[in-house]
């Protein structure tokens, strides 16, 4: 018998969504990196995280390298753009947390505006711990930066009406629909947002993320199932590109947090943190994420090379 290479053709296709001026996500009609089956769409995008407050808990080399810029988000963003040129920048409004300054939505909007003016890269805005407050923050930020294709992380079941109406409808930005590691929940939230009037080309999804080792099998399986539903069953309510805030999860698990004094045999702490970030990011990209948010420049560099080798 002669070898016949198998092919899997799907009828569905992931939507194209544009972040900022022209960072296109999605567009694939095959499983992630299956270039042997067909069109893999746009290259997965890599974003870098910055904060609106001093990143006390971050790895020493990053904090040292940033120096005073770590206190000025706009300068920080500009530095990241020039030095590392990621595909986008994610401004995370940690300062709006109750225990980190409790910034008002107006203050958040000011910071976001400064950052947006300092850089050319597309922006992603991530909120604080409180979904309720995020509704207010996102409304103000979107109002200050209308029609810029900025993605807002995230609209959840509890605040989607407010976030969807402000971000998606009134100010023409992009809504990220976040659900909890379940295909049906992801689908339901997408449908609710569309019923509200948000256009699917102004939507991304985050179906729930975790770090490798921490319930990550559920994350991978949810991604697998969502992608198969979108491609194989042509489920148009699940064809939005997926963005995952990998660094938000990986830098808080023990493998990244434990100091060398805590666990001497584990060796260099920063290297462990980078490794968990890289492995988690690859893990979700391979299962279906179209964009990931990273913290460490080394992770960015490795992920970029990895994607270039695979695409």
């Amino acid at each position, binding site marked *: *018998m*002669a*070898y*016949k*290479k*198998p092919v*899997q053709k799907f009828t569905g296709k992931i939507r194209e969504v544009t972040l900022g001026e022209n960072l296109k996500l999605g567009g694939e009609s095959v499983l992630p*990196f*299956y*270039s*042997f089956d067909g069109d893999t769409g746009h290259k997965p995008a890599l974003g870098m995280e910055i904060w609106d407050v001093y990143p006390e808990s971050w790895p020493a080399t990053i904090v040292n390298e940033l120096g005073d810029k770590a206190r000025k988000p706009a300068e920080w963003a500009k530095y990241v753009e020039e030095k590392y040129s990621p595909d986008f920048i994610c401004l995370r409004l940690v300062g709006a947390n109750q225990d980190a300054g409790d910034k008002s939505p107006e203050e958040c909007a000011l910071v976001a505006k400064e950052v947006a003016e300092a850089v050319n890269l597309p922006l992603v805005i991530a909120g604080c711990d409180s979904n309720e407050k995020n509704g207010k923050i996102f409304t103000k930020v979107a109002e200050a930066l209308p029609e810029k294709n900025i993605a807002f992380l995230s609209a959840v079941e509890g605040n989607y009406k407010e976030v969807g109406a402000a971000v998606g409808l009134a100010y023409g930005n992009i809504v990220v629909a976040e659900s*909890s590691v379940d295909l049906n929940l992801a689908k339901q939230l997408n449908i609710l947002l569309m019923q509200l009037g948000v256009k699917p080309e102004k939507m991304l999804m985050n179906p729930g993320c975790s770090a*490798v*080792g*921490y*319930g*990550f*099998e559920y994350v*991978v*399986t949810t991604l*697998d*199932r969502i992608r*198969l539903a979108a491609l194989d069953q042509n489920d148009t309510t699940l064809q939005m590109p997926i963005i995952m805030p990998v660094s938000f999860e990986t830098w*808080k*698990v*023990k*493998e990244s*947090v*434990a100091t060398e004094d*805590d666990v001497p*045999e*584990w*060796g*260099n702490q920063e*290297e*462990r943190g*980078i*490794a*968990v970030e*890289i*492995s*988690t990011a*690859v*893990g979700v990209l*391979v*299962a279906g994420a179209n964009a990931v948010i990273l913290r460490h420049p*080394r992770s960015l560099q*490795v*992920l970029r*090379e*990895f994607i270039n*080798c*695979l*695409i």
Partner: protein
Amino acid sequence: MALTGMDIYKLLPKKNCKECGFPTCLAFAMKLAQGAVEAGKCPYMSDDAKARLSEATAPPMRTVKFGAGDKCYNLGGETVLFRHEKTFVNRPRFAVLFSDAMSEEEIQGKIARMNKVNYVRINEEMYVEIAALKCESGNKDTFLSLIKKVKDGCKKAVPMIITSDPEIARAAVEECKESGPILFGADEQNCEAMVELAKQHGLLLGVTAPDQEKLYNLVQKIQNLGYRELLLSTESGTLKQTFDDVVNIRRTALLSQDRTLGYPTLVFVNLLSKDKMMQLAMATLFVEKYASVIVLDDIDYSLALPLFALRQNIYTDPQRPMKVEQGLYKIGSADENSPLLVTVDFALTYFIVSGEVERSKIPSWMLIPDAGGYSVLTAWASGKLSGKSIAKAVKDFAVEEKLKTREIVIPGKVAVLKADIEDELPGWKVVVGPDEAALLPKFLRDYADKKVS
């Protein structure tokens, strides 16, 4: 092609003697068709029927073995492309590469690092299972001396002999055959001699060819030589092509139902990049999709922690949630005044938290209520972890009788439960612990100090 229950029934002796454990031959045939029993359960089947059945009901991908004694591992045997379809069964094994062209120092350094990475995560012992031993010198004695060193140095690792020279391979097998080594690589030129050697010792044979098509032809040739204990690999020098190969070997077996490529695969990640973090990225890819042996240049905790954890996750059976039994658990020599902590019955959470409590060296109690087998926030969000479920556990496990303490430490992530628990448990005080278990040792030490003073 798969046989139906009726097709199989026609092959059976039709005695209805029940010796197979089923009431009739037909019932047995139906079970066979589902792959739920083995054909061998019927003692009266003709050899011809047996052969036809085993061919038709054999799984699309063969399960092969390597190693010896308590270091014996299965590879392959996968039946699905996605874990939610059923489950992945035989986890990939990691290998570290040694070459006989390496300096003594380099060899000893690797041996030391292999031995250092050895720990337990959620009841599973983690270490590198394979020492990949490559003959680059072309010299038999040099190679044998490497094998000896690594064999003596890494007691846990099963050797994988890497050479294309059958003479050197034969001597190498002699040197370590008691540990059930993998023999790598049979190729177009040497396959007769390599198959004979593998056959003689019942070894798992690594097969290598330049591309998918040549591999396919080579496997046919080897199968015709009567050997089926195989591990496949291609010599594609790029990540992109190697990924293509590994995915399509798996799909040929499972989708095209062509068992010629129905064997597990091996990837030399170490040949695709020299950078450690790139090797990690690639190994992550191949743990998810779909390699069975992954060869790295080296190992340390920064690589092992994410890779072994990922592998453990991906190879968890989705139909069998990992739960621990509810109850009151004693950690260390806790007495009736020791701290009491509550967590959930999700195995992952329980083992992480109990590990940290042990590390703190503060003898403690852990109360595990019925939390549906979920993580802390999942259990809370689904209403399974509540004042009620915790109070119920306090009653069910007679905590008030066994302990004098009336304080209970709860996970920081569910601080909001404090008032609810105190309502349900009159006379008790709830103390909110840290968000992450990693902070528990410090927290417990401070907490115990405070209680004493």
